[in-house]
C-alpha cells in the first residue's frame, strides 16, 4: 500500500528572497577575505520520459547549492557545496579562503561589485512550478495515445524546472530572481523504423506548452515523411522551421565576444586589429537582442558576478551593434562592460510557412537539426544533420519526403542570405530536450544553404 505524499498546494520551489538573503548573510558572516561573493541556486526538477509507448522513467530532484568566491588581492578561488549547516558552510568559506590564498594571482581580476540596479523580471510561473507528477504523466500519455492511434511509436520527454538564484557580495550587492522553465518534446516513429516525426515546445509558462499540438505535429510529420525518396546533396533554398533556426542561433552566443574578436580569433575580428562593431554585416531585416524580461523567455536580470543584464541589441537592421565585454576587457578598452547574452530574441517578419513554400521553385523544408558542432570559428561555420521530417519543395508545393542531409553552413552567411522571415516563437532549442537558454526565433527562408552530404538515418 502506498502512502500518499504530503504536498503543499502552490508550493513555490527554490528559496525565497528573504531566505536567500539570510543564507548569504550567514555565509558572509564567516568570511575574512578582502572580498567574498555568494551565489545560491535552489529549486526542483521533475521529468517524465516515454519510449516504446510507455513511461520509461520519471523522477524529481531538489537541491540548494552555494558557491563561495573568496578574494585576497588578486588571488581568487571558489567552493561550491550543497551542505547548508553552519559547520559545513563555515568549512566551505575557510576552504575557499585557503584555496584563494594559495592560488596564483589573476591580474585580470576586477573587484566585486557593490549594489546594482536590476531590471524587473517576473519569470516564475505557478502553472509550471505547481505542475504535478500526474500532470506530467498525463501529458506523456497523450503523446503515447496519439502515436498508438496512428499505429506508431512515441518517445518523449517533459522537463520541468522551478527555482531561484541569488547573489550577494561583501560589497553590499544583493540580487534575487526566480524562474521556471518547461520543455516538452515528442518523437513519433513508424514500427518498422521507416519514418520519424517530431514536435516540441519550450517556455517558462506551462500554459504555453501545447501538448495536443505537439502530438499532432509529431504524428503528422511521421505520416508525411513515410516513403522518403532520394535527393542529392547540394546548395538549396531552404525553409527552416523555428526549431532548426533556434539550434543554429544558439551557436551565435559563443561568437558574440569582443575580446575573441580583438585578439583576432573570431569571425568578428577585423583585419589589422579590432572588431566589427558598427559594420553592416547581415541582411537588413536581421535584428538580434537579449532581454531578461522577454515574455515566456525570461532570464535572471543579473550575471553570476552581479552585473545587470538589461535589454541589449547585438545586431540591429543587419548592423553589428554590440559584442560582449568582460569587466576586465571593458576597462582595458575603455568602454562599458557588456555581459554576454543570457537569451536570444530574433526579430521576424510577416511571412507564413506556406508563403515561404509558395515562393520556392525548388528547395527543401527542414524540421530540425541534430548534432550541430562548430566546424570553422573563422566563419561561424557549423556542421550537423537534418532530422524528423525533410521534404522537397517544387514549384511552390511540398512535392515529396526526402532523405536527411548533413549540412556544412556558415551562420554568418545564412544571416546574409535570409529571404523571408516569419513570426518569432520560443523554440525547443536544445538537442537533449531539456530546458535551455531561451531562444526566440522566426521560421526563415534562406538561399544557398549547403546540404553537403546525404544521411541514411531516420
Amino acid at each position: 500500500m502506498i502512502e500518499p505524499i504530503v504536498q503543499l498546494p502552490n508550493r513555490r520551489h527554490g528559496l525565497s528572497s528573504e531566505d536567500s538573503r539570510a543564507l548569504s548573510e550567514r555565509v558572509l558572516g564567516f568570511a575574512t577575505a578582502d572580498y567574498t561573493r555568494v551565489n545560491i541556486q535552489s529549486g526542483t526538477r521533475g521529468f517524465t520520459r516515454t519510449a516504446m509507448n510507455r513511461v520509461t522513467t520519471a523522477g524529481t530532484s531538489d537541491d540548494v547549492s552555494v558557491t563561495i568566491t573568496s578574494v585576497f588581492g588578486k588571488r581568487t578561488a571558489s567552493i561550491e557545496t550543497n551542505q547548508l549547516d553552519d559547520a559545513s558552510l563555515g568549512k566551505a568559506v575557510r576552504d575557499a579562503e585557503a584555496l584563494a590564498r594559495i592560488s596564483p594571482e589573476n591580474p585580470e581580476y576586477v573587484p566585486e561589485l557593490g549594489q546594482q540596479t536590476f531590471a524587473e523580471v517576473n519569470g516564475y510561473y505557478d502553472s509550471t512550478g505547481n505542475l504535478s507528477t500526474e500532470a506530467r504523466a498525463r501529458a506523456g500519455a497523450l503523446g503515447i495515445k496519439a502515436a498508438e492511434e496512428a499505429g506508431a511509436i512515441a518517445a518523449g520527454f517533459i522537463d520541468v524546472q522551478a527555482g531561484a538564484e541569488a547573489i550577494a557580495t561583501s560589497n553590499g550587492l544583493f540580487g534575487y530572481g526566480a524562474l521556471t522553465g518547461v520543455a516538452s518534446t515528442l518523437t513519433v516513429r513508424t514500427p518498422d523504423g521507416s519514418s520519424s516525426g517530431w514536435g516540441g515546445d519550450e517556455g517558462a509558462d506551462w500554459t504555453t506548452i501545447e501538448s495536443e499540438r505537439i502530438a499532432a505535429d509529431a504524428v503528422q510529420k511521421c505520416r508525411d515523411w513515410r516513403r522518403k525518396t532520394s535527393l542529392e546533396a547540394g546548395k538549396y533554398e531552404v525553409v527552416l522551421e523555428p526549431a532548426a533556426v533556434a539550434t543554429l542561433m544558439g551557436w551565435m552566443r559563443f561568437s558574440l565576444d569582443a575580446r575573441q574578436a580583438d585578439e583576432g580569433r573570431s569571425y568578428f575580428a577585423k583585419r589589422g586589429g579590432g572588431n566589427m562593431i558598427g559594420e553592416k554585416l547581415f541582411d537588413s531585416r536581421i535584428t538580434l537582442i537579449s532581454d531578461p524580461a522577454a515574455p515566456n523567455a525570461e532570464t535572471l536580470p543579473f550575471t553570476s558576478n552581479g552585473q545587470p543584464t538589461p535589454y541589449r541589441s547585438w545586431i540591429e537592421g543587419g548592423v553589428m551593434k554590440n559584442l560582449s565585454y568582460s569587466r576586465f576587457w571593458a576597462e582595458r578598452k575603455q568602454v562599458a562592460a557588456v555581459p554576454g547574452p543570457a537569451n536570444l530574441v530574433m526579430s521576424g517578419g510577416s511571412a507564413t510557412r506556406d508563403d515561404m513554400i509558395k515562393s520556392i521553385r525548388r528547395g527543401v523544408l527542414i524540421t530540425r537539426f541534430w548534432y550541430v558542432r562548430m566546424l570553422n570559428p573563422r566563419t561561424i561555420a557549423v556542421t550537423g544533420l537534418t532530422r524528423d521530417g525533410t521534404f522537397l519543395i517544387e514549384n511552390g508545393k511540398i512535392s515529396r519526403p526526402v532523405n536527411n542531409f548533413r549540412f556544412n553552413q556558415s551562420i554568418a552567411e545564412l544571416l546574409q542570405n535570409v529571404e523571408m522571415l516569419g513570426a518569432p516563437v520560443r523554440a525547443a532549442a536544445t538537442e537533449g530536450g531539456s530546458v535551455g537558454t531561451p531562444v526566440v526565433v522566426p521560421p526563415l527562408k534562406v538561399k544557398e544553404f549547403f546540404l553537403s552530404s546525404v544521411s541514411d538515418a531516420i
Partner: protein
Amino acid sequence: MKNKLGRRDFVKVTGAAMAAGAAGFNIPAAFSQANSAPGPDAAEREIAMLALDAVKAAGATYADVRVSRHLFEAIGTRERQITNVTKNESYGIGVRALVGGSWGFASTRDLAKDSVVRVAREAAAIAAANDKIAPTKTVLAPARRVPDGRWITPHEIDPFSVPVEQKADLLFRTNEEALKVKGVQFVSSRIFSVKESRLLATSEGSVIQQTFIRLAPSVEVTAVAADASDFQTRTQSAQAAARGWEYVVGLSYPENVLRWAEEAVMKLSARPVEPGRWDLVLHPSHLWLTIHESIGHPTELDRAMGYEANYAGTTFVAPPQNVLGKLRYGPEIMNVVGNRTEPGACATVGWDDEGVAATEWPIIDKGIFVNYQTTREMVDWISPLTGVKESLGCAYGENWASIPFARMPNVSLKPGREDLSVEDVIAQTRRGIYIEGDGSYSIDQQRYNFQFGGQVFWEIRDGKRVRMLRDAAYVGRTPEFWRSLAVVGGPSSYELGATFFDGKGQPTQSNAVSHGCPVALFRNANIINTA
C-alpha cells in the same frame, strides 16, 4: 554524443570519514588496490537502509539507493595567469523504485531522516502513478548479491592531496614553453580532477562502497596570423584517465607542448587539403572518438529498442534478431570489446550502479557484431538470441540526483598480432592523410553519416609523411568506413582516449568513458575541405 562542458555538469566530494575495513567481496583480480578500498560510512549505510525500508513499505518490489559525494576541481590558466580555481562538492541521496513494471526516482540533498523517508516514498509514488497511467512489464536479470563490496580506482597519488599551487605551476610551465614558439599568441591549459564516493544499497541485499578518481588535463595553443586574417589552434584534450596525479606528471606537458605549439604555427601556412579520396592513417588520439561515435553508441541496446529515439536517436545496428551474430561490421582483423575493467580507463569500476560486477565481453568478433551493451532490465530483451542471462554491467547514474540507466562502458579496438608502429602503418600507405587528435565531430541519429575533423593532418606520399595539410575532415557512412579498415597497428601503438562528458538520456547525464585502440589504416576515405 560528446558534450561541451556545462557549468553544472559535475557535482562532487571530499573524503568523508570512511572506515577502512575488511577485504572486498567479488573483486576483479586486476585491481590490486581493491583490498585497501574503504568500506561504507556507518551513518550513510544507516540512511541507505532507512530509505530501502521506506521504499519497500511504500510498495516497491525492487529498489536501489545511492548515497554519493562528488568532488570536482577545476584549475584553468591562460598564458601567464590563472583564469579559475574552483571546487564543487555535492552530496545527496537518490532512490529508484520499481512498482508493477514502472520506474520512479526521487532524490534530495537533505539527508535528514524524515527527508530520506519522504524521498523514498515519493520514488515509489511516482512509479505507481506511471504504472497506473501507462502500465508496463519489467524483468530484471538476476544479479549476484554483494553484501560488502569495496573498490577504489587504483592510484598512487590522490589528486586532491596535491596543492593547487603545484597544479598551477605545471600549467604555467606548460604555457611558458608554448609561448616561446614564435607565432604562438595564446595558450590555455586546465586540469579537471574528480573524486566520487558512491554507496549503493539494493533491496536484494547488496551493499557496495566505491571510490572513483579521474583526471582530465588539456592544453590548447593558438597561433594568429600577423594581419589577424587567420588563426589556428592545436588542442590536446583526449587524455582523461582514471588514474592518480602521477599520471598527469608522466604526461610531461612542459616538454611535449613544444611540438603542439609548433604544429599550431605550422597550421597557419599548411597547404589546404585537396578534397577527394585518400587513404587515412588514424592515430589513437583521433581514432578513439571515431570508435566512440560509430561503434560505442550504435551498440547500445536501449538505442536499438527505441528508448533514446527522442534524443540521441536509434541505431543502424537493429533490430537485434537481424544483426546479432550476422552483421558484418568490418573485416576479420576488427575485434572490439566492451569492458569496465581496463586499468586507467574512465568507465572502469568494481560494480555498476545496479551492483553487477565489472566484466569484459566481445562486441565485434572478427568483424561480426556479436553483442550489445546491457543493464539488468535489458537482458530479457535479447537473451534468447545471445544466450547471455546476466547483465553486462552498464548501469550508471551521473550522481545522486540522476536515475541510473544504460551507459557506455569502455569500448576498445584490439590491436593486431603483428606489432606495427605508426611509422610501419604509414609506410604501407601510398597516398594518404595521417591524422592526430580529435577535432570537429558530428554523426547522425542512427550512426550512419559522420564527419570528423582532427587536430593535425599530414600528407603521406609513398609511405612517408611529406607535408602538413589543413582544413580537412572525412565524411563517411559507418558500415562502409569500418569495412575499409585495412591495417590495425600492434600492441605498442595502443593508447586510450577519453572524455569526461559523454551525454545521453533525458535529462542529459554525463558519463566518463575511455576507448583504447592502436593506429589503424582505412582505404579510400572521402575527404572534404572545411575552410
